[in-house]
Structures are given as structure tokens and as C-alpha cells.
């Protein structure tokens, strides 16, 4: 635990890159991600006297960031549409055809994954997960994180990104399928 306010301020500042990275993953806009990070750090410094260490500092900061990012998305006067360079490609699930045979059965055996346990394993896992999230197409990542991180209701996401409920379902499916595949190669293959 930090012993002085200055220590705490230094500790908070240390997490700036992590917060910025997460904000950028969601917002896909450097200025907006910077704003979210800045607002989070300021709110954390102001709220520091109330930080009681019940959660880890990082968890507390990420929770503040989450609220700031939601505020930024809701504050936008008009929906920001991220136009995918190939809109149809992001909705195309034939990319997963190779995973299944003609009868819709998995084409290859699945390795049994275990949760990473040691610090070394966990560091390695989250590094791969982060890389896999970064590799998702921008709109897919935005939609996916709006559900999984921000936990926004589906109808709000549909309205914000101007996509139908059906397309939202496909984007979320694609994100989950791609992440599993990416981890299968990047982490399980380590």
C-alpha cells in the first residue's frame, strides 16, 4: 500500500499506458482515448483519499475509466459511425467454414485449455489476449467491448453504431470465434 499521497499519485500515473490502451481499444480514437485517460487520472487523484485499498489500485482505475468511456460515448451529440473498409467482410462468417466439416462438425480435435495460474502464465496469457483484441476489426472490437466491458444494452449499441440487431449478433459471434481461434494459435501454441 502507498504510504503517502505522492506515492499514490505516482502509482496512479504508472497505469496511464494501460488505461490509454484499453480506452483506445474501445473508442478507436486517439483524442477521445486521451480524454478518457486524462479524466480518469484526474478523478482518481481527486478520489484518492477515498481509495481504501479494498480493490487493487488497477481495478479501481479501470472501473473509473469504464464510466468515463461510457460518458464519452453517451456525450457524443451524434452517433459516431466507424465505417469498416469492407463492411461485408465483418459480417461474413464463411471465414469459419474451415473449422467445420460439411455436416457442421468440428473438423479438428480441441485441446483442453486450463486457466493460466502462475504469474508468468497469466502475464503471457493476457499479453496474447490483448494482441488478439487489437487484431479484431475496429467495428467488431468496439461492438464486442461495448457488450463485454461497458455492458451497454444491445439496443443502445445498435443505435450508437447504426446496425441492426441481426448484424450485432453476427459481429459478437465473430468476435468470440476469432478470439478463441487467435488464443488457440497464440497462447495454446506457446
Amino acid at each position, binding site marked *: 500500500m502507498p504510504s503517502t499521497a505522492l506515492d499514490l499519485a505516482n502509482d496512479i500515473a504508472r497505469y496511464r499506458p494501460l488505461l490509454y490502451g484499453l480506452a483506445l481499444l474501445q473508442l478507436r480514437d486517439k483524442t477521445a482515448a486521451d480524454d478518457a485517460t486524462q479524466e480518469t487520472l484526474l478523478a482518481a487523484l481527486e478520489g484518492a483519499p477515498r481509495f481504501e485499498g479494498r480493490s487493487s489500485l488497477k481495478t479501481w482505475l479501470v*472501473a473509473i475509466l469504464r464510466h468515463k468511456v461510457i460518458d464519452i460515448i453517451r456525450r457524443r451529440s451524434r452517433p459516431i459511425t466507424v465505417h469498416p473498409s469492407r463492411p461485408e467482410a465483418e459480417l461474413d462468417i464463411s471465414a469459419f467454414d474451415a473449422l*467445420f466439416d460439411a455436416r*457442421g462438425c468440428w473438423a479438428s*480435435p480441441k485441446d483442453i485449455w486450463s486457466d493460466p495460474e502462475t504469474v508468468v502464465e*497469466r502475464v503471457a496469457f493476457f499479453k496474447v489476449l490483448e494482441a488478439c483484441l487489437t487484431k479484431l476489426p475496429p467495428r467488431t472490437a468496439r461492438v464486442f467491448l461495448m*457488450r463485454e466491458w461497458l455492458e451497454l444494452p444491445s439496443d443502445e449499441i445498435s443505435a450508437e453504431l447504426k446496425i441492426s440487431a441481426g448484424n450485432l*449478433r453476427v459481429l459478437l459471434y465473430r468476435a468470440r470465434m476469432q478470439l478463441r481461434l487467435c*488464443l488457440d494459435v497464440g497462447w495454446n501454441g506457446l
Partner: protein
Amino acid sequence: MTDDGPITCRDTTWLVSDARERPLAESEKKALAEHIASCSLCQGASRQFEVLFRQLGLYLKGETPDA
């Protein structure tokens, strides 16, 4: 899915994703459970999705080790 017939491995991946968006209907839950019980490949795949969702949840809460 529109009927209660047997489902494919590929169908199960849709249900695994949909289950994070909405409560599955009883018929869907049953079809999913029955298929997974009889399919070792799907047991492996659904285990992979479980690990993915659990670890993603930790990551998005900042519950990660400091590298």
C-alpha cells in the same frame, strides 16, 4: 434455430455466443446440453470458450498481474 431437432457443432457455437446476450430458451438449453454431452470436440471447444470468457472478464476488470 427454428426447430427442436438435433443441432450441429457449428450451431452450438452460436448458442454459446447467444447465451452471453440473452437467456436461452429451454429447448435451446436442452439441445446444447445434449449435443455437448455426446460430442468430445464440443466439450473441448466449450471449455475453451469458458476459459476465454473468464479470463476476458478478469482482463476487463483490471485484474491482471503487473508485468
